[in-house]
């Protein structure tokens, strides 16, 4: 397993072109320094919902990494335009663009003929509030946005018409001084060299487009130590030469890379990348390091790997239950521990990269809920050694990672925190406690599901094992109470600190309150003797629904009946999840006579007392 984790860190490109090193170069986008690799991955996620590209061209099938794809888009867009990368599922949108149906992915060249129709429609949709949009309108907007993103990437490294940017930049370097002299002379009303002037003007025209639309800011400030505000895109970087009299070195390096990559000149490309990296090393050590580290993190894919390990562990422990093999259970346990370690490494690495506490958005909350649940499951396993803790850890860990993966499709998951959220103190206290509360609720709910499935469908649930499960659920629910209550009150205090009211009955606040009330109901019903084991289990399963509503449902409020906007898929899943949990509760409410377990009279003679 460990060998597999390490082996994927090696570069898997067979090409001579050192695209990995290019992928590590730092740029500024979304308000933060990130490597080209992240720009490529996040763009692809939005456009294609995947982090790699594969498909078939006339020349045969191909597979390329995100960075290779981005390099092609930026240096040889005409070629990239043929690759089928735009994922369009909506039939109406396909109809609008007159696309052949039966495909999942389309190329830019296929979209282009009807791009005006798309723009026209998007301009109409833009005026509609996002909550009011129909599914078609939401999809139009989404496609329009990713198509715009793609077009901006196309001109992020070179002007649209440029064949050999390196040579053109070199020519411009020669032409600046006479060109500026010509401009000055003309302004002063003196005689001037028309040719020199025209050369400079042509250059200005070409790079003006780039300066207006190029997306990532790839040129670092001329004076080292200047603020991040001063990063420029390729166009502005090139145009700055008209003021300073020389082209900044990063612009030249990038020009060289663009030409070399376009001509598949590996030697020249690799040299330009290495030279630029050395140049950055002089005064941009920190940015270079950030790029390298985030590249490593993306390549490591710790969360994906943890997911795979969790699935394996889940299967192993389940098999161990049927075969009664203690060895398999132990293997499963060690696998969960291994997965948990990778999960933790990912979590800590992410915190380090962002310089933030672990939960900053919905995506990272999913990662963290899984982590918390896995930790709780491992603690249970350590205490009870019966495989239950392992299964819980592996299952909740796995499901939350799947949810996280789907949440990542929105683009950059390390986005900057909006003003009111820009506080590590509250992110570290309120958000962490409330999220741990979610973890505990899901663990308790899943334990209860195990109890009911085991009890109804197998004979293995006896007095001892059912008592043990009930104790686990009770303990975890108490744990959930602790974190949910404190988390909710801390949230109120944060609200009081930032806008002057402790409680405003806002949907997110109410969601948290619902969990607290629900847990209080479970605990009081238990103490008051109103429920016994099965009642506890059923209430704990409903706790799953309450928690899912609090976590996701409140984000979907304000959504009209006819349209669920971008959350439509999530809404469907939430409904399915709720339905499944209610089915389980109904199953748990079946009379005991219909359960497979609890059929034989147990040690005691009093049948009432022995029944859970």
């Amino acid at each position: 397993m460990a060998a597999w984790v390490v082996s994927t860190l090696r570069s898997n490109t067979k090409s001579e072109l050192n695209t990995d090193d290019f992928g590590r170069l730092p740029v500024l986008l979304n308000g933060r320094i990130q490597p080209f690799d992240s720009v490529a991955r996040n763009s692809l996620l939005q456009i294609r919902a995947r982090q790699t590209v594969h498909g078939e061209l006339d020349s045969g099938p191909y597979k390329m990494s995100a960075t290779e794809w981005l390099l092609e888009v930026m240096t040889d867009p005409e070629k990239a335009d043929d690759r089928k990368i735009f994922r369009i599922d909506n039939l109406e949108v396909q109809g609008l663009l007159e696309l052949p149906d039966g495909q999942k992915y389309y190329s830019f060249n296929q979209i282009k003929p009807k791009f005006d129709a798309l723009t026209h429609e998007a301009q109409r949709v833009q005026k509609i509030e996002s909550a009011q949009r129909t599914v078609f309108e939401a999809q139009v907007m989404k496609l329009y946005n990713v198509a715009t993103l793609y077009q901006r990437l196309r001109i992020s490294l070179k002007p649209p018409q440029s064949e050999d940017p390196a040579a053109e930049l070199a020519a411009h370097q020669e032409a600046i001084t006479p060109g500026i002299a010509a401009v000055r002379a003309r302004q002063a009303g003196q005689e001037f060299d028309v040719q020199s002037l025209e050369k400079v003007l042509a250059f200005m025209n070409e790079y003006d487009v780039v300066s207006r639309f190029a997306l990532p800011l790839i040129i670092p400030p001329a004076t080292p130590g200047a603020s991040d505000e001063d990063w420029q895109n390729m166009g502005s970087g090139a145009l700055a030469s008209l003021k300073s009299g020389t082209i900044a070195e990063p612009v030249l390096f990038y020009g060289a890379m663009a030409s070399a990559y376009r001509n598949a000149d590996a030697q020249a490309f690799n040299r330009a990348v290495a030279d630029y990296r050395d140049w950055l090393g002089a005064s941009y050590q920190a940015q270079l390091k950030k790029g390298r580290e985030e590249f490593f993190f993306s390549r490591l894919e710790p969360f994906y790997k943890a997911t795979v390990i969790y699935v394996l562990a889940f299967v192993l422990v389940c098999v161990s239950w049927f075969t009664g093999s203690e060895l398999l259970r132990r293997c499963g346990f060690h696998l969960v521990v291994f997965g948990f370690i990778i999960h933790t490494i990912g979590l800590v690495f992410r915190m380090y990269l962002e310089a933030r506490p672990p939960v900053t958005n919905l995506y990272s909350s999913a990662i963290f809920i899984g982590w918390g649940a896995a930790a709780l499951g491992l603690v249970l396993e350590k205490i009870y050694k019966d495989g239950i803790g392992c299964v819980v850890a592996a299952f909740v860990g796995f499901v939350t990672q799947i949810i996280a993966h789907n949440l990542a499709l929105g683009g950059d998951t390390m986005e900057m925190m909006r003003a009111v959220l820009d506080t590590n103190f509250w992110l570290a206290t309120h958000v962490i406690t409330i999220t741990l509360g979610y973890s505990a609720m899901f663990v308790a709910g899943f334990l209860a599901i195990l109890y009911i499935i085991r009890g109804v469908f197998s004979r293995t649930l006896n007095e001892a094992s059912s008592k043990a499960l009930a104790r686990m659920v009770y303990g975890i629910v108490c744990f959930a109470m602790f974190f949910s209550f404190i988390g909710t009150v801390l949230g109120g205090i944060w609200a009081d600190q930032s806008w002057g009211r402790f409680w405003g009955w806002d949907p997110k606040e109410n969601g948290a309150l619902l969990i607290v009330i629900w847990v209080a109901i479970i605990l009081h019903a238990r103490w008051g003797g109103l429920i016994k084991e099965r009642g506890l289990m059923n209430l704990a399963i409903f706790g799953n629904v309450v928690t899912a509503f609090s976590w996701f449902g409140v984000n979907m409020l304000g959504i009209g009946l006819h349209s669920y906007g971008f959350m439509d898929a999530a809404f469907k899943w939430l409904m399915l999840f709720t339905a499944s949990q209610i089915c389980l509760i109904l199953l748990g409410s079946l009379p005991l006579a219909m359960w497979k377990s609890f059929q034989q009279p147990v040690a005691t003679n009093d049948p009432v007392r022995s029944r859970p």
Partner: protein
Amino acid sequence: MLLDRLYRIISSVRLAIVCLAMGFVLVFWGTLAQVTMGLYKAQNDFFRSFFIYWEPSWADIRIPIFPGGYLVGGVLLINLIAAHTRYYKPGKKKIGIMLIHAGIVLLLVGQFLTDVLSSESTLHLRIGETKNYSEAGRSFELAVVDITDGEMSKVVAIPEHALATKKEIKHPGLPFVLRPKAFYLNSDLTTKQESGFERVPATQGVGTGVWWRERPRETVMDRRDMPSGVLELTSPQGALGTWLVSGHLMNTQEFTHDGRKYQIGLRLTRFYKPFSIHLIEFNHDRYPGTEIPKNFSSRVRIMRPDTGEDREVLIYMNNPLRYWGETYYQASFDTDDQGSVLQVVRNPSWLTPYFSCVLVSIGLFWQFMAHLIPFLKRRIAT
């Protein structure tokens, strides 16, 4: 006997569960209701009420169908206190439970006090502007200002609900009587005749060329009602005419009576303070290369004549100014970044959640450990 039974019911854990279950339904329902009725109305109907009413469209009645927040919270409070008097036993085992419930009592009482005692207003300042009052978010007042003596103007403010009753208003500070001829708590104005609009029955001021219509009250949190009314002014010498006053009108209208100059107009209710606040600078920081806001901050100067205080304060996100029993928060800003909006909250019971949080946390922790440690000991022993 009967009292005894009642006491047992009131202090029972069953009642606690009933209250919690009702609270659960109430919160869920109230959250969903926000989608259609807006946060402001949902808050008042569900949580700041004793009952939720059903108002059938075919009859002018209100039928209570579910307990509201005050009722559920109130009963829960009584239940909590009764249960603790009934079951109170001194000893280490119960300390955790006592602390948790004491904290919850404090929280419930504190929130009720907040509802009753707290008030909110806003302070909108352009850069360089100074004000010694904040303004209500939703309510208006009629201001009649005697500006004859320049700086020393005399203000008479009349709350809008007094106008809405359409009763005659006499004020010792005014030499004339105000008689609201018509008053809409929410309204539209237009300068052209449009369908659904009526001509404003004003004889003086800007209202003579204006049409109006009544609108339903706003229920969404961030939108306010715009009241309009027509007032007749009568002095002992005779009628002075009728004026349109409206929240829509930016400027006040001037008139002269008995040699004195007056201004009349509806404005947001003002809360005057014994100090003034001057906005020196407003900053709207964005993350580099994006439009994502990073921080909003207002540098203000507080000037208080009676204490001689004169100092600068920086108010920014998550860092409000607490002064004179009020708290000033960075709430919003003008679209041109040249003005700042501060939320002003007066809440005497603002500290209760903090104490409550500490009490409950200690209690929960105590209780959790009291169960966990013996359990682990048993586990290790076996």
